[in-house]
């Protein structure tokens, strides 16, 4: 029809065809593709052409305003509202809440005097979908269904935004509205998980647990509900339950993810397609089994369950060194620390468990790997910035320093293990090696340090590097990661 001049009698059919085509395009591409906005605008321009009004050079928002104000023909009402619903979906997917609100104010023809958060939902509720006549062309998804989905998505999206902004009570009520809406089980589980997050942050852990449980009841694949539950249990101090949750999570991650549940072909536009924000993605990203195993091991060690911790750490080391079938997250946002630190923690657990020889073997691995990476003397020039932070250390030097600390810590653990074995000669040898490694570092302050404000974060750094030992001794193995003082350097 694009080649024909726009005429009112055929436009109703034309807009319906456009609506159906766009629905399929969205469904096919599994997300809202670019160019839909233009196709809708084009349709609107043709409507205006048919009425003898020029619609060129207007933004989509202005086009809608003009079309809905100028086109009063009754037969155009249903197709235009249908297209409006689709436009709302497109804008919602792009997080353009302002445009959506303005559009539905026009479509519903009411003025709602509510706060910004509830305005859109009220407008959606007030919008009466024009009845489809018997003779009107068939559509693949009715406007009524689309309205329901829009309502759920708008509530979910705004709830997420409230959660992100820290506006917890509003977020809670919006998410509860969304949970009452029309959506798939997977989305419902996500909404419940978000409610769980929200209530946890509001200081209502029991309520959070209730919602997380419901999320899992609705969809067991919603694994982030499980990890959230573990966090809540940790907050409550219920270590058993927390470890159970983590173990369950690990088991679930071990089995390959089941593919998405079959999609009802009647619902081409779904809430999943409309709600996607970075916050949601990070909340529901699938964690790696190794990350879960690590937190399981670490929590056991921190809770004093050394035996269990050792088992988990050994599992973890095996997992890390297995073939490439088991992928390990090495990127910056991973929950796993750097690999030598995992080894050090494992050594610490083994040592506490009395498996001194094993601890020595694990430490040997670190010592062997770092040997070639540390120069004889590591001379580092550094300075203190105005805020007391350390500056002027190159990334290369930072990495060398880290190797120094890992190696020294490994020797320290070996010394302890030999002490545990009762071989004080070996122990002294390893403690000496530990010191020798640390003595390789020469820190040179480049004089930008202002005498009036000595660096507060690194008190032990001035003078001979005896402070390093203090640093290491202070880090009771397993209680927290090696080199905490270190991290203020690293960050």
């Amino acid at each position, binding site marked *: 029809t694009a080649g024909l001049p726009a005429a009112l009698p055929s436009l109703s059919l034309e807009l319906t065809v456009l609506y159906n085509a766009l629905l399929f395009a969205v469904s096919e591409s599994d*997300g809202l593709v670019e160019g839909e906005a233009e196709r809708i605008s084009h349709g609107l321009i043709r409507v205006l052409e048919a009425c003898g009004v020029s619609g060129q050079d207007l933004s989509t928002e202005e086009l809608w305003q003009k079309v809905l104000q100028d086109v009063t023909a009754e037969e155009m009402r249903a197709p235009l509202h249908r297209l409006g619903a689709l436009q709302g979906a497109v804008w919602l997917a792009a997080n353009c809440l302002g445009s959506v609100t303005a559009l539905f104010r026009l479509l519903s023809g009411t003025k709602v005097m509510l706060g910004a958060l509830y305005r859109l939902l009220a407008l959606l509720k007030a919008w009466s979908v024009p009845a489809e006549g018997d003779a009107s062309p068939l559509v693949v998804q009715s406007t009524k269904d689309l309205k329901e989905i829009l309502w759920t998505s708008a509530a979910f999206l705004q709830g997420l935004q409230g959660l992100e902004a820290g506006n917890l009570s509003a977020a809670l009520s919006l998410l509860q509205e969304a949970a009452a809406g029309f959506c798939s089980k997977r989305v419902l589980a996500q909404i419940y998980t978000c409610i769980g997050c929200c209530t946890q942050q509001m200081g209502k852990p029991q309520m959070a647990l209730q919602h997380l449980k419901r999320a899992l009841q609705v969809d067991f694949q919603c694994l982030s509900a499980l990890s959230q539950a573990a966090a809540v249990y940790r907050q409550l101090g219920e270590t058993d339950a927390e470890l159970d949750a983590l173990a369950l999570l690990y088991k679930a991650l071990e089995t390959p993810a089941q593919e998405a549940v079959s999609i009802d072909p009647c619902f081409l536009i779904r809430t999943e397609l409309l709600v*996607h924000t*970075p916050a949601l*993605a*990070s909340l529901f*990203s*699938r964690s*790696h089994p190794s990350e879960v195993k690590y937190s399981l091991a670490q929590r056991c060690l921190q809770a004093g369950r050394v035996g269990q911790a050792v088992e988990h750490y050994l599992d973890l080391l095996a997992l*890390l*060194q297995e*073939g*490439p*079938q*088991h*992928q*390990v*997250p*090495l*990127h*910056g*946002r*991973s929950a796993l620390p*750097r*690999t*030598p630190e995992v*080894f050090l923690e494992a050594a610490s657990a083994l040592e506490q468990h009395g498996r001194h020889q094993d601890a020595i073997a694990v430490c040997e*691995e*670190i010592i062997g*790997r*770092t040997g*070639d*990476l*540390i*120069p*004889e*003397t590591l001379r580092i020039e550094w300075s203190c910035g105005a805020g007391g932070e350390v500056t002027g250390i190159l990334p*290369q030097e930072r*990495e*060398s320093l880290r*190797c120094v600390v890992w190696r020294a810590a490994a020797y320290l653990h070996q010394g302890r293990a030999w002490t545990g074995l009762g071989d004080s000669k070996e122990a002294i040898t390893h403690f000496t090696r530990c010191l020798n490694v640390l003595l390789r570092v020469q820190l040179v302050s480049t004089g930008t340090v202002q005498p009036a404000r000595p660096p507060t974060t690194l008190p032990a750094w001035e003078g001979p590097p005896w402070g390093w030992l203090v640093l290491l001794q202070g880090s009771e193995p397993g209680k927290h990661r090696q080199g905490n003082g270190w991290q203020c350097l690293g960050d």
Partner: protein
Amino acid sequence: MAHLGHRVDYLAGFCCPVGGLAAGKPRVLCHENEIYLSNSSEFVYVYDQEGKLLKTIYKFPDQVWHVELLPFRRQLYILCARNGIYCISLDQQSRLMKQTDGEEGACPSSVFPIDSDACIFPDAALCAFTLLNDIVVTLSQAQGKWWLKLHEFLDPEQESLPCRQISQVGFSTCDQTGDEGNALSSRFLPVLCCASSPGGAGPEEGLWCSGGFVLEEPLFSLLFGIDAAMLNSPMLLCGFPDGQLCCVPLKALSSSEADDDCSDVAGQDPPMKVLHHLEEPVVFIGALRTEHRALDDADDPQLFGDSGCDCLVAVGHCGKMVAMKADRREEAKIPEVREYYLQGPILCAACGGGSRMYYSTHSDISAVDLDWVSNASDPESVDNSAYVLPPVLSPASLSICSVVALSLSSRASEGDSELLALSAKGRLMSCDLCSPDEGHPASLTPERADQRIKELLSGIGNVSERVSFLKKAVDQKNRALTSLNQVLNVSAALLSNLDGQRPLACTITASWSRLLLRDTLTVSCLLENSSDCTLEQGWTLCIQLFTSPCALDEDPAESATTYTFPIAQLLPGSKREVTLPLGSAEGTKLELPLTISCALYYSLREILDSASDSYESLDDLLPDDSPGLSPDKEGICLPLSECTIDILQCLRLEDSTVPGAAPSIATPSDPLETFLKAARGQPDPSHEDVRDSLLPKALDTLGDTCLPPSVASIKVASELLKNALKNFSEETPLCCAALQWLLAENAAVAALRSQDVSAVRGLAPDGGEVQLLVREVAVDSLCPAGPIQAVEILIQSPSLADMCRVHQAVIRRIQTLVLEQAAQGSGPPDLRMQYLNQIQANHEMLLKDVQSLRDRLCLGEEAGTTAEKLLDVYRQLRNPSLILL
């Protein structure tokens, strides 16, 4: 450049395309006694080195881009362009072959077509892949990004699918999207290989077969980080056509956001790391063992097997090479990275376990040795603390040219001993790299003599191929020089004879011919080579048509059309005629007069291209800074001739010309009559063309079609004409001679010549009728001496435009005639100046009238009558008509 001692054996010849094989995609692999070869066609060959015969040929649906072998599974993996990866089990195929070949050994080879069942990765976007035990890593390009995907082979007996995807990571190299159309980048495929740490490798043989290697510590940790080393993760190395050398740990092949939509936003730090940027397409990644192992190490087979290479190298297409090696000095624990510049373009390269890397260019295979300490003449003098990479490389030549695929045979148990090479002509050869000092036996036993003869023969074969290649290159350059010489000869001949008889001439004539049942006016250009040089291929005849802007045209934009005709060969003394249709009688309007200019053009690009076919780039022949030869406008343009085609040449004369009898030419009719006719309004469709006439548009309203025929007359003194037309025979009356002279360039003039006519009627190209009448008159009242004998040329046409065109054409001829006469110095007779002055004054008055009438016309007042008056004034202006003395 040093020469290495070696022996070359020809093993087999394979088909190759006309221009020779292009580098990049052909591949030679060797395992035990079998050589697996693909020559970028759709075939993969299996050659038995022991039996010296071709065992099997596999045929794939498309070009084969890459072949890898998994020795312990006895499987061959083939990347087929636009299809995906195919897997062939070698055992199965040999069984199959035995079944089909009843007679053993009778047929050396049979072609097995591979069907799509064997395709284990159907993915049309795949660019490269590599194998690591049970893992396949693929690199594909989609949605403007590169995608690295990790797949695991599954047990075919238990699972329905041959493999399962473990993870994937997408990333974009910086200039990848911008360079989509870049020819250099798109010609190259990315290079993918796998580097293992000493502990993390599986069976070394498999790694080696698929181009992978083991990098020893501390280089591995220094290059890839301690995490990859402690995870025992092999590293994937990718060399991209844009020059980036990237690495990613195989165990961490997942971006931070697994497969979310938001990976573009958040996935800023994929585990991908850029090791180096070569700034030219990467053609090879390999590793070398540059330091000799300590003796005690060598005794220990365990240690010996475990330690790998200590130097990573990558080579770019244009010759840039980068080597990375751990710096042994104590102060800094960083890898030493050194760039070298080899002579490119590099087609392929290979390294084995030793310290030598072999690379092939168009003209030679060279070996570079990165173990400079043991090669140095005095090892003692080399400072031990600077024990890193050599500062410069000295390539040693193997004298084997244009090899497109290289492989070091894995048959050799230790070191580099045999090099397999596939030449651009499709020949597979093996080059023995053992040092020649192994034995020059004093006495030749028959066996040794046999061997020696074989060696010599293959040496001759090798030299002959090299000679033929070089000969070809020399021939091409000679040809280019010859053509350049000829071009210069032709140019000199043409440019030195600017006025006189040109050795190359182009004659342009217009004539009517019947094409496709329509009468068409065609222009034919006859190029005549009267010089003594041949116009070779590469010359082009350019014919440019300009429609000269009519002074009366409202839009005087000059338009030009250019036709080019390549000249295949024009020998001295031969002619070549080309014809162009100008327009048919009924077709589009023809704007006359037309100016046609002919020129010869020679594209230098032509020479350069023929001299540098697929092997060499243009830059080899011409340095970049050669002045005035930018690649866009290289060429020589020699103008030949220019001529004007006017209506007199295009008139179609009618046969009805009555010889001798003057046709009735209406005298200018009474204006009143004209007006009355116009008022009656008789449309006459044949006179449409008056529209592009002298008159402003308002005349259209008058119904200009019913105007009486326009008449113009030109009088030329008989004396003048007689002088000019001396070469016409005496018998011809002056009038007839004048008419023949006017129509001299018309194709139909021959008919006139035999008939002695003084009037003709003809059709203009657009169909309008034109009459020409030449008669002798006496002009009095002009000269005091009495009446002057003159020739009057009367032009009459119902179409004002045609009349004007003819008038213009006649004037143009007379103009040249007068100019020639004036040059001969004949002075005009005495004239009555007063009379002339009066005529001029009258004309000026009339011109003023014209101006005012035109102004009124523009204002649109009483258009009809004003136009009528205007025409009348024009008519008066033409009377008395032009007299030329």
